[in-house]
């Protein structure tokens, strides 16, 4: 091991211990298990800084944090799935004694042996780990894909196609059109004014139409079709710009969250 590595590691250990002692001292009187609480807050801060250290360069502390996260979160989802879905939804339908063991109420309608089907399919899915008979996991996979296809078919058709098309047919003169005289006498550029509303509706109607033209690749984009496609890409660029703006906003918020943790919960600066 290089000398620098040893010095850094020693510094990290010393800082960790110092933080643990100080935090435990700060929690004394507030919490019954103040030593454990002090350790947990220090460990959370250590993990936060370990991940952030990646910004300098890849290093063993980051790798430690990354590997820990993978293991812990996989087990977290497994345990949650087991307790909330297997124990609460499956067990009472298959066995009264197991339901009593797990202290979950039995089903009023009694047992339902039809529910052995997902157990069998689930076990077949686990056989994917075997090289020899892994192919049998296609059966549960087909069930999963079939359910997704069946569920999505109607819902996407209704909500993402029919309703979206229907919402695009907006009144192009605005909702409160009271005639050309009233329109010109109240003409202004206020955000809630008739002109802005009218422009918005035109942008929505033409924007969706031209956006769809852009996505239509079965015909060459030239002439009127090409012009429509060009308007479509402008609309899409504004859309991506808005998405970029919101993405920046979101990422900054996450950083604010982490720095707040470090400053408030760990260092108690704020």
């Amino acid at each position, binding site marked *: 091991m290089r000398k620098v590595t040893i010095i850094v590691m020693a510094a990290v250990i010393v800082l960790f211990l110092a933080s643990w002692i100080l935090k435990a001292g700060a929690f004394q009187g507030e919490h019954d298990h103040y030593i454990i609480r002090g350790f947990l807050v220090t460990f959370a*801060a250590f993990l936060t800084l370990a991940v952030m250290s990646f910004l300098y360069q890849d290093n063993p502390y980051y790798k430690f944090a990354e590997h820990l996260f993978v293991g812990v979160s996989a*087990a977290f989802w497994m345990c*949650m799935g087991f307790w909330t879905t297997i124990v609460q939804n499956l067990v009472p339908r298959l066995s009264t004694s197991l339901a009593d063991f797990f202290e979950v109420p039995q089903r009023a309608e009694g047992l339902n042996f039809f529910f052995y*089907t997902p157990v069998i399919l*689930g076990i077949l899915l686990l056989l994917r780990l075997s090289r020899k008979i892994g192919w049998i996991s296609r059966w549960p*996979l087909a069930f999963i894909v079939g359910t997704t296809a069946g569920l999505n078919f109607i819902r996407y058709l209704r909500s993402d196609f029919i309703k979206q098309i229907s919402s695009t047919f907006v009144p192009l003169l605005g909702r409160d059109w009271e005639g050309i005289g009233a329109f010109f006498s109240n003409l202004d*550029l206020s955000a809630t004014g008739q002109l802005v509303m009218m422009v918005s509706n035109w942008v929505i109607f033409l924007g969706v139409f031209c956006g769809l033209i852009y996505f239509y690749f079965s015909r060459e984009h030239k002439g009127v079709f090409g012009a429509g496609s060009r308007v479509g890409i402008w609309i899409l660029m504004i859309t991506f710009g808005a998405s970029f703006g919101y993405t920046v906003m979101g990422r900054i918020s996450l950083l604010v969250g982490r720095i707040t943790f470090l400053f408030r919960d760990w260092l108690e600066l704020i």
Partner: protein
Amino acid sequence: MRRAIPLTILAVVGTVLIVSVFLPPLENLGEDFTLFFDIIAVFAFFLGGGNLVRIHFNKLWRKRKDWGFSIVTLFGFFFMLVIGLLKIGNPGGIGADPTAEGSWFQETFNYVINPLQSTMYALLAFFVASASYRAFRAKNREATLLLLAAFIILLGRTPFGVMLTAWVPESWSIAQIPNLAVWIMNSPNLAGQRAIIIGIGLGVVSMSLRLILGIERSYLGEDRG
């Protein structure tokens, strides 16, 4: 056996779930199939966990590069699994909420998963900033439009944007940056997103139909058994 059975399962399940929307007597069967799906989803979590353990044991066994970190993964995995399945420290016993306050499981979530996951995503703030400095160039008309929209949104969603154009009179209020940001979201953004949604919607519908009819078989893999 390797292809006919999965194709049949898929066709039956998919058809039942579509028909159950139109035929109320089949609604119960549709719900049952969905519940099966939910239960199988948990087995998929188990499969994921099993695969993780296999890969890291392999790495450890063969002493591949960074094998030492596989010990960390395996320790984290088994530690969480044991405290989660045995509900260690849970104040409510076996039937209680697995995430009850005070349980080791919840504490590990609060002090290990929470900081790790949120910091990993928080790093993206730095990379977005770096990309802003190095990559976002107004090279052509389309890129300029993208940047302008992003500028207006970034300013319009902060109090600074309000201050910057507070002097604009009410009769011109669309020129105030926050109002312009709202307009962009409600009009061009809505139109662009809707075009995308309609496109994806049609894609999902046609793919679902291709799957149910057995035309799309890529999920079965390459094997021709």
